[in-house]
C-alpha cells in the first residue's frame, strides 16, 4: 500500500466521490446531502461497501479496519475520517 500525503477535505471528498462512482457509475451526488447515509441513498450493498473500503484504503494509503466502518457512514464523516487518518498515518 502506497503511503500518501495528507489529504485536505476537498481532496478527500473528491476521492470518495470518485471511488463511489467507480462502483456505482451513475451515482447522482446531487441527491446525497453531506449527512445522508450514502449507502442507503446510493444503494451500496455490503459488497459495494467493501469495494469502497478497498478503493479508499488503496488510494488514500491508509488502513481501514472493520472497526472504522461506523465512521464511513456519511460523506461528511467519511471525509473527516480520511483527512484525520491520512494526517495521522503519515
Amino acid at each position, binding site marked *: 500500500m502506497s503511503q500518501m500525503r495528507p489529504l485536505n477535505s476537498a481532496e478527500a471528498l473528491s476521492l470518495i466521490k470518485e471511488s463511489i462512482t467507480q462502483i456505482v457509475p451513475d451515482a447522482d451526488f446531487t441527491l446525497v446531502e453531506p449527512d445522508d447515509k450514502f449507502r*442507503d441513498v446510493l*444503494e451500496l450493498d455490503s*459488497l459495494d461497501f467493501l469495494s469502497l473500503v478497498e478503493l479508499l*484504503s488503496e488510494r488514500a494509503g491508509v488502513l481501514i479496519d472493520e472497526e472504522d466502518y461506523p465512521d464511513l457512514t456519511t460523506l461528511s464523516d467519511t471525509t473527516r475520517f480520511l483527512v484525520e487518518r491520512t494526517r495521522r498515518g503519515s
Partner: protein
Amino acid sequence: MTAFTMPSLGADMDEGLLQEWLVSPGERVHKGDVMAVVETDKAAIEVECFESGTVGRLLVEPGTRVPVGTPLALIEDQAVPDERAGVGEAMVSKAPTCATGGQEPATRHQRPAPRRKAARKPEVTPEPALAASRKEPTGEHVHAPPEPSGGADSVIGAGPLVRHLAVLRGVDLTTLHGTGPGGRITRADVEHAQPPLAPKVRASPYARRLAHDLGVDLAAVQGTGDGGAVRAADVRTAMRTLAGGKGPERTDRGPLTGDTLPDAAIRRDSRPEDRTDTMRRAIADLMSRSKREIPHYYLSTTIDLTAADDWLRRINRARTPTDRLVPAALLLKAAAVAAREVPALNGYWQNGEFVPASEINLGIAVSLRQGGLLAPVIHTADTLPPDALMTRLKELVQRARRGRLRGSEMTGATLTVTSLGDQGVEAVFGVIHPPQVALVGFGAVVERPWAAGGMLGVRPVVTATLAADHRATDGAVGARYLTAVDRLLQRPEEL
C-alpha cells in the same frame, strides 16, 4: 485333386457341424454320392460331392463345427466312369468348367464360400483382379490404428453405458476428466457431472423457430399453451410488448392469425435498450409461473449472529479490505451446507416429481442498479471455503452488474438465496425460481434485544426465511433446514 467343402445348405447357413463321415479314405465316390452328414440349425442333412474320384484325406473330425466353404476332405482326381449315367465315356469325369472361367476347377472348391461378414469380403472376392485391387487399401486400413476423430478422441474410453448415460443427462463427455483406470470416464463421472443446463422451456417447434428468428428469449416468454408451453402467438405477444405497443395493431383475433408482424418491427424490437424491459418481463413471467404453479409455504426464524460476527471480525482484522469477508459469505455457506443436510430442498420439480440435484449450486439473487434481478450461480457452494466463496461472490456480483456473466454462471442453480439485508429490511419471503423447490432469504443483520441463558442482551441477529414448494416438501423439512442454518452459523469456524 479337389476339396470336398462344407456346403451352404440354406440362405441362413454360415457354418455347419460335421456329424458323420459316410465314406472312408480310399473309397471311390461318384459325383452326387453322399459323403457325410452335416448338422444344420434345422436338421441333419446328407451332403453330396460334386466330383468323382477317390476319397483322400479326411480333414475334419466328426463333431467339428466349421464355416461354410471349409475343406472337409480331399477327393483325388480320377477318371471314374459314371456307370449310373449309362454312358461309357469319360463324360462325367470331365472336370466342369469353373463358374468364373479361367480358373482351374480345384480352386473353386478350395476357395472359401463368400461370407456375409463384411470383414471377410476381400479374401473371398470372386474376381481375382478385383480382389487384388482391393487388397492393398484394405490392408492399410486394417492395420492402421484407429484414426482419432476430433473431439471424440478424448472420450474413447467411455463405454456404451457411459455414453448412453451422458446422452440422457445431457453431459458432454469431452468436458469430463475420467477417474477410471487409465483415465476412463466412468459412470460416476457422468453422474457427478453438471446436470443439464437451464431447464428446457416448453415451446412448440414453430414458436422456437420464430423466437430464434425474431431474437426473442424463449425463457422470457409466457406460454399460454398446454402446460404453459410457449406457442408462436406468445412469442409475437412478447415481441409486441418489447416494441412498446408500437407493433402493428391487431384488429383480429390476436393469436390466431398468421405471421403478421413485419420484419421492421421485429428488428426494432430487439435493440439492446429494450433489455431492461425484456428482463422485467422475464421476471414477470417466471415469477407468475412460479406463483401459478408452485404452492409456496413460508418459514422464518431469527438467528443470533454473535458468534459469526465475532468470528468475522477476528478474521477480518488481520486482513486487507480485499481479503475481508462479509457476513453474506457466511450466510451463503451456511445455506449451502444446510442444503446438504436437507437434500429435499435442493433440486428440481420436474414432470410431477422432485428430482434431487447431485450438487449444491446456489443461485444468488443480485439486484441490478438499473432495476431488475439476476441470479448468477455459485456452483458446488457447499464445498467452497468461505474465502473462495467470497471471491466467487464478488466476481459474480461485479460481472452481473456489468452484464458480463458467462453462460455457465447463469445456469444450473439448484437452490436460490436472496438477501435484502443491505436494503434494510429484516425479512424477505421470496418467490421460488421454478423448477427449483426452495428459496432462502436473509434480511438485514440488525442489533436486537436477545434473551440467552436467562439474560437479556443486545445481539446482532438476522432473520432467515424459507419459501419452499409444498409439492416437494412439507413444513417439517423446511424447519429442519432453517434449524440447520442456525446451528451452522453458531460455529462459523467450521464453515
